């Protein structure tokens, strides 16, 4: 790494005036400069990331109501309640987890396959390609609030264009897209696919462009047809990207919030109320912050297990490859999506 190269040099430019004469070649004598550069970030990081992770754990061990003066320590009660059938939080939490699971299972396959097909088409060179790319990707830059408000209108059971055009095609035109299941699930998944497929397509495209063209030429000379080329060249070449896309898609789907908060409002009943939705309601509407914090830690454990599973799944298959690409930010990246 570059660090060994920079080390000796770094002292000669040290502008640290308090640290005394820096000794040559001793990297630990760089003085205060690195910390001055890091300070603004670290203040934010400690106050709003590291601190809260610990603080959240503390909150989860208390009966913590924002509006009440006493926040008694209750040990693991908030957690045991989540795993005790019949308790209030058990029911709402697992119903919400179920909703999250349903949404994830329905949306992930579509969000893996549809964008791949689009990326494969867009990877061909043809005039106007960039325009099409831009169009398919555009909805993603819209926020969930705009997307949801728009689709709530389009899907309106009475005056919405979706039902109207379905009727023109001779299909049922009285589906309650926002208030009945399973229609609400199809609506939520469909909207999410429309909204976010461009995001995955762009990542796929970048991956496709990194597959050496000679491999295709060689395959073609060996008489491989389109499908064989896809199976033996494209898919293996795309594996690292596929694992990354799978991971962020699962995590983004498991973090779904805005669509169900705005389009279905959890209806019918609380059937489409997702885990994040429930955590926000429990903690920030009903101020049962201890319970909500416990829920968020349980959800986090689930998500971590899930991503380790995905990671392991893809890792094993490419065991011979030494260095898996450093994958950036599954959680952080798509947080705006829910």
């Amino acid at each position: 790494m570059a660090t060994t190269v920079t080390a000796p040099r770094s002292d000669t430019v040290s502008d640290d005036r308090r640290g005394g004469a820096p000794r040559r070649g001793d990297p630990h004598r760089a003085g205060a400069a690195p910390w001055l550069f890091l300070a603004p970030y670290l203040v934010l990081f400690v106050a709003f990331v590291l601190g809260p992770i610990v603080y959240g754990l503390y909150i989860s061990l208390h009966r913590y109501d924002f509006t009440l003066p006493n926040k008694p320590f209750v040990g693991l009660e908030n957690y045991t309640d989540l795993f005790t059938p019949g308790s209030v939080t058990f029911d709402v939490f697992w119903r919400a987890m179920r909703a999250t699971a349903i949404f994830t299972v329905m949306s992930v396959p579509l969000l893996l396959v549809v964008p791949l097909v689009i990326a494969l088409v867009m990877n061909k060179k043809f005039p106007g390609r960039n325009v099409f790319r831009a169009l398919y990707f555009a909805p993603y830059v819209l926020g969930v609030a705009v997307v949801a408000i728009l689709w709530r209108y389009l899907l309106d059971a009475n005056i919405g264009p979706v039902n109207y055009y379905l009727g023109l095609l001779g299909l049922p035109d009285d589906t309650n897209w926002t208030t009945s299941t399973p229609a609400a699930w199809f609506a939520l998944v469909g909207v999410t696919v429309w909204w976010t497929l461009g995001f995955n397509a762009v990542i796929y495209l970048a991956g496709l462009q990194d597959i050496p063209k000679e491999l295709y030429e060689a395959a073609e000379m060996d008489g491989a047809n389109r499908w064989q080329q896809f199976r033996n060249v494209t898919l293996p070449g795309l594996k690292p990207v596929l694992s990354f896309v799978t991971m962020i898609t699962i995590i983004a789907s498991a973090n779904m919030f805005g669509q169900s908060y705005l389009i279905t409002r959890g209806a019918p009943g609380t059937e489409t109320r997702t885990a994040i939705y429930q955590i926000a309601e429990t903690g920030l509407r009903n101020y049962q912050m201890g319970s909500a914090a416990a829920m968020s830690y349980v959800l986090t454990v689930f998500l971590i297990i899930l991503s380790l599973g995905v990671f392991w799944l893809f890792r094993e298959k490419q065991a011979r490859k030494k260095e898996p690409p450093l994958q950036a930010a599954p959680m952080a990246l798509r947080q705006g999506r829910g």
Partner: protein
Amino acid sequence: MSTSVEPRPGAAAPARQNRKPPPEPTKLKVRRVLRYVVLTLLALAFISPLIFMLVTSFKTRADAASLPPTWIPNPFSTDAYATVTGAGTNTPVLRWFANSMIAAALHALLVVSTAALAAYALARMEFRGKKIVFGMVVATLFVPPVILVIPNYLIVGELFWLDTLIAIIVPTAASAFGVFFLRQFFIGLPLELEEAARLDGANRWQIFWKVVLPLSRPALVTLAMLSFLTNYNDFLWPVYVLFSPDVQTLPAGLSTLQTANAVRYDLLMAGAVVASVPVLALYVGAQRFIIEGVSRSGLKG
């Protein structure tokens, strides 16, 4: 980056000549036309919801609520915009718009400046604890944001930031992704330029400010765009930490607009159009950076 993996010129050229004979021109033409037809139809289906949003925002209240849906407003009306942006209503869309723009711009500035400083230290300086700091930052990439919601709400409350724009500018600004992304970029910069500046007597700050930052403009712009977009579009956090009509952001405000005017679709679409304009404009203007940021974040650093 994609260009760097172009096959060696010597290898590719002869292979291309060895291809099977090209199909006769007419067949090729038909296929090409067919491709455009399919792509265009798909693209139309894909963006028609957005077109319909725009169309509906220019309809009258009655026209917006009647069937069959029309694609040309008749009569053409800007009433919806006048209503949602009008003074004295409880839906000050222009105020929300300003709040969103200010918050997202300041947020992006804060993210880029703090992340750039930290990333430079992590990329180019040696110090005790560097590995621990970097390790912790990278580890939080994998922490789902949901576990921060409850504690950060309380912290923001204790700082008396609830119901102020600071609450949506600052707490989400510690971007682990930003630090990681910029560090990778800084490491890739040629060391020689920094050395030259050093020989000219520049100190660390001068090197950072006058050499590293100007060279990193594409990465900085990319990070700024992504941070702006994320903040502008954020929904969960603003909905719960901002309550007064005057301090809401557009996405949070839109949801109150929806509750207050459940069936006034002309108003809702006008609000949605106002909210979409800045991000779509940003997208058209800076598409390269946004797409690059997205695709790069998924690949090796």
